[in-house]
């Protein structure tokens, strides 16, 4: 009781109001200085199992014809370009989306079969599935014992 009276006199109705206000202020300041992540374009996720690799990449606004995928040994190269949203000179209010050419080399955990690469693009997400050559796959060795 005594402490709540103390706080009331100290900072109005709620002792934490000022603290929350300060925290919000700091959050607001920090959020306006957030720089775009320096990660390269496009961002890529890789999933693997013992038969192969599944890659996905976020490529919004990249036309299918502007995208080139090549595989050499254990490296996959994504090459392409993103067209600007408009060709006319415009009065921009905001400009956050980049455009231009990009290249990414992705090292895969193992060699892949260049003849068995499937790639699809849907809603701006590229999915590539890569398979390991049969002779490279890990083989289970049967242990035979002698009695």
């Amino acid at each position, binding site marked *: 009781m005594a402490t709540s009276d103390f706080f009331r006199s100290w900072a*109005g109705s709620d002792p934490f*109001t*000022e603290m*929350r*206000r300060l925290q*919000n*202020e700091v*959050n*607001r300041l920090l*959020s*306006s200085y*957030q720089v*775009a*992540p320096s*990660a390269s374009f496009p*961002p*890529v*996720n*890789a*999933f*693997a*199992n013992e038969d192969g*690799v*599944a890659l*996905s990449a*976020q*490529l*919004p*606004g*990249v*036309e299918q014809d502007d995208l080139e995928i090549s595989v050499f040994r254990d490296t996959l190269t994504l090459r392409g370009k993103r067209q600007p*949203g*408009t060709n*006319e000179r*415009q*009065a*921009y*209010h*905001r*400009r*956050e*989306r980049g455009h231009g050419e990009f290249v990414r080399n992705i090292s895969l*955990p193992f060699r892949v079969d260049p003849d068995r690469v499937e790639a699809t*693009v849907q*809603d*701006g*997400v590229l999915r590539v599935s890569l398979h390991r050559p049969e002779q490279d796959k890990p083989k289970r060795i049967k242990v035979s014992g002698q009695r």
Partner: protein
Amino acid sequence: MADKQVRTQQRQPATTSGGQEVAPAEGGERTRPRPVYAPRTDIFETDDGLVILADMPGVPADGVDVTLERNVLTIRGRTEDSPPQGFSPVYLEYQSGDYERVFTLFEDIEAERIEANVKAGVLRLFLPKAGPAQTKRIQVRAS
């Protein structure tokens, strides 16, 4: 007074960050346990209206929801992808999530004629400007 200030500031992260995870626009929690990002956006003005381009990779055409209430434009996009079955992640650069961003418009927009389409994960919105405002001249009469 202090409370009021806090509430108006909370709206801001949703509009200032680009491609970053954002807090819910109106406070409170979402029902879907997915991260929500502010899509990177271009906005430019043409003679007849505003064009908004927003990067929302993974959002199908029927996953987009655009609302204009008074002068507050809200863009939402839902994604439904899941990691491939039977694989384990080895290297991750992005996390898929939903998209949300709120803009306050300063132009008069004809809400009925807004066009929206989604192509290759990019939302394109055309917001036609309302016709020239009828300026009314007020005659000042000397008495």
